[in-house]
């Protein structure tokens, strides 16, 4: 029972961490290596508004998410657009931005354990004899809502359809009058907001620490590689695969090996099926 419950929770947490990365890559083909840094930054900004300026918690979260969206858009418009199409440069540029954010936070004194966000709902409940705190239930609920919302957004809204068009074939989308750079900016903004949302949902379970940024980036990359780079649904499925594999590893081998699961998943996927589970486009390239 504990494997099932915590497997679902862990999987949804991984999906939350990875969705923003998958979305940005799927549309703009830019691997946003600043993803983990944005996750952590949203936590610190929320903390600053909440604890430093004494704003309402919900308002602090909203402001933080809006700021993350603006940051994502600016990063694309002023940095990544210049190196778009040059894969190595994209990685170096985005990773450098992430590094600057994280190490800048550390340099600015955001270190130690005193940076915490309160849980949305205090307390815990027993399900099948297993204790679960309400915040994890909130994570599951929001996670499911975000996945559904993202699906609806990309299927029933003009912008969402344009984003999908870009993801499927950028040249065809251009011919249909879709502004690819604008869509990439929108994707980057939404991706950054999703990273920020993952942060404000998951960080109340622990502390806001700079190191989380690096871990979240590795986990997001693992999920996206296993799911197939650019595939959002693949990312969700991969999150469940890795999420359950991690929990099974903790139960039967020990917590020590939890992070190894994600790294092994990357290695095995790249050896056995480099396109991942749903990386259709890449798979076609591989066949050719």
């Amino acid at each position: 029972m504990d494997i099932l419950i915590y497997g679902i929770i862990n999987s949804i947490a991984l999906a939350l961490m990875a969705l923003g990365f998958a979305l940005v890559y799927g549309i703009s083909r830019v691997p946003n290596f600043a993803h983990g840094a944005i996750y952590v930054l949203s936590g610190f900004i929320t903390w600053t508004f909440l604890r430093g300026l004494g704003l309402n918690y919900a308002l602090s979260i909203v402001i933080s998410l809006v700021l993350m969206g603006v940051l994502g858009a600016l990063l694309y418009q002023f940095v990544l657009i210049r190196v778009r199409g040059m894969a190595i440069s994209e990685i170096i540029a985005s990773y450098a931005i992430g590094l600057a954010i994280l190490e800048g936070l550390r340099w600015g004194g955001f270190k130690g354990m005193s940076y915490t966000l309160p849980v949305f709902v205090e307390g815990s409940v027993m399900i099948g004899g297993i204790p679960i705190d309400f915040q994890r239930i909130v994570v599951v609920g929001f996670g499911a809502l975000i996945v559904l919302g993202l699906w609806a957004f990309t299927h029933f809204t003009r912008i969402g359809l344009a984003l999908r068009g870009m993801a499927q074939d950028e040249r065809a989308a251009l011919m249909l009058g879709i502004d690819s750079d604008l869509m990439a900016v929108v994707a980057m903004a939404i991706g950054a907001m999703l990273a920020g949302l993952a942060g404000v949902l998951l960080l109340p379970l622990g502390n806001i620490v700079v190191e989380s940024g690096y871990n979240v980036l590795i986990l997001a990359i693992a999920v996206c590689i296993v799911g197939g780079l650019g595939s959002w649904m693949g990312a969700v499925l991969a999150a469940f695969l890795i999420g359950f594999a991690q929990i099974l590893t903790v139960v039967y081998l020990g917590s020590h090996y939890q992070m190894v699961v994600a790294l092994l998943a990357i290695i095995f996927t790249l050896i056995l099926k480099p396109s991942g589970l749903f990386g259709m486009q890449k798979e076609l390239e591989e066949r050719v």
Partner: protein
Amino acid sequence: MKMRGFGILAVLLAAAFLVLPGTQALAEEPITLGCPLSTAYLYGWDADRAIRLAVDEINAAGGVNVGGVKRPFKVEVMDTRDLEPGVPVSEALLAVEKLILEKKADFLVGGPVRSEAALAAMSLLSKHKKVSIFTTGFLSPQFHAMVAKDYDKFKYCFRIHGEAVQLVKEIMACFQEIKDKYGLDKVFIMVQDVAHARGGGEVLGKVATGKGWQVLGTEIYPTGTTDFSMGLIKAKKAGAQILNIWMDMPESSILLKQWYDMKVPALPFGSTLAAAEQPGFWKATEGKGEYTLCNVVNAGNAPSDATPWTMKFYDAYAKKWGVEPEGLGSSSSYMAVYVLKDAIERAGSLDSEKVLAELEKTDLMGVYGRIRFDPKNHQVIPSFDPKEGAVGSILQWQAGKRVVVFPKSIAKGEIQLPPWMKK
């Protein structure tokens, strides 16, 4: 008018005489203390602050008498980053070497902090014949084993704080008190994947089993772990009554928050638990860390009356830094500077061989008891009685305060159980 002028002159002259000794000391060439510390982490910054406090006090009192010349201490800190996850040991060694070669450190005080890095640095210190006092975080028993085994090579290294084997002795004695008072006898060990914690957890498991405790399991966590829920469920399902924690990462406060949220009926006992050592722990866990026990290695890192110097140091630290002594490296780092001053003054020289010979003869009543080094292995001599040796300290968080509960000779309160553990 004339008399008034004489009066002013007399006052100025008197003031000049009062200030002169200090000014003279400061004018002399300073003695450079190289401090290799992981400054972004508790065991680095607490040591940094404590060293600076001691240096300021000594300099204000005129400095160090080196063969009749008063010389001030100067502090050079270099970040070893050795407590950061994923940073290789070579970074710390580089910092140590830079302090010796570039900053021309006369002595080293402080780290490296992580046992792996400190052990590796010992050969480097021997190569440069630099007297070094380890003061924070370096708990591995391998230190004094190495010095005892190859004295001529490692004789320049001293350790002024407690180490893992002594910690286990103190913890087992405290466990016994808990067993006698509350009848608890089942322990689950949770350790961070670093040398001192793995080693400490292993030793504690063996010793506890030998003393009739049921050790239900050991869970090892990589540095930087932020989710401990499955380990806590394992402990709960196994029927653990004490969670023995060995972690120096700040994320360990998350473990306590999750322990509270899950209402795990086991008393958290940090053999090394950096998060719970800090005064900010209460706020960081929003009070969820109440009842957490934590070994702060030496007295003076939490309020007690171990010696007349304990609270004097405690209050001076709080006044200077605006926060109470925060981690296990505070009182020992502070004392290291005084012990070094004492040895230099007796040696009358900065020569490594002369100073180390005097350090071996140290016998000083300090912040956490009588400070003496074992001349064969250069480990500070521990004791449960501050009159006999360096005394340890185990605290429990009670109603927002750090209350020393062990050893009895310095305890300020009794160990309590959380409400959900009371029958």
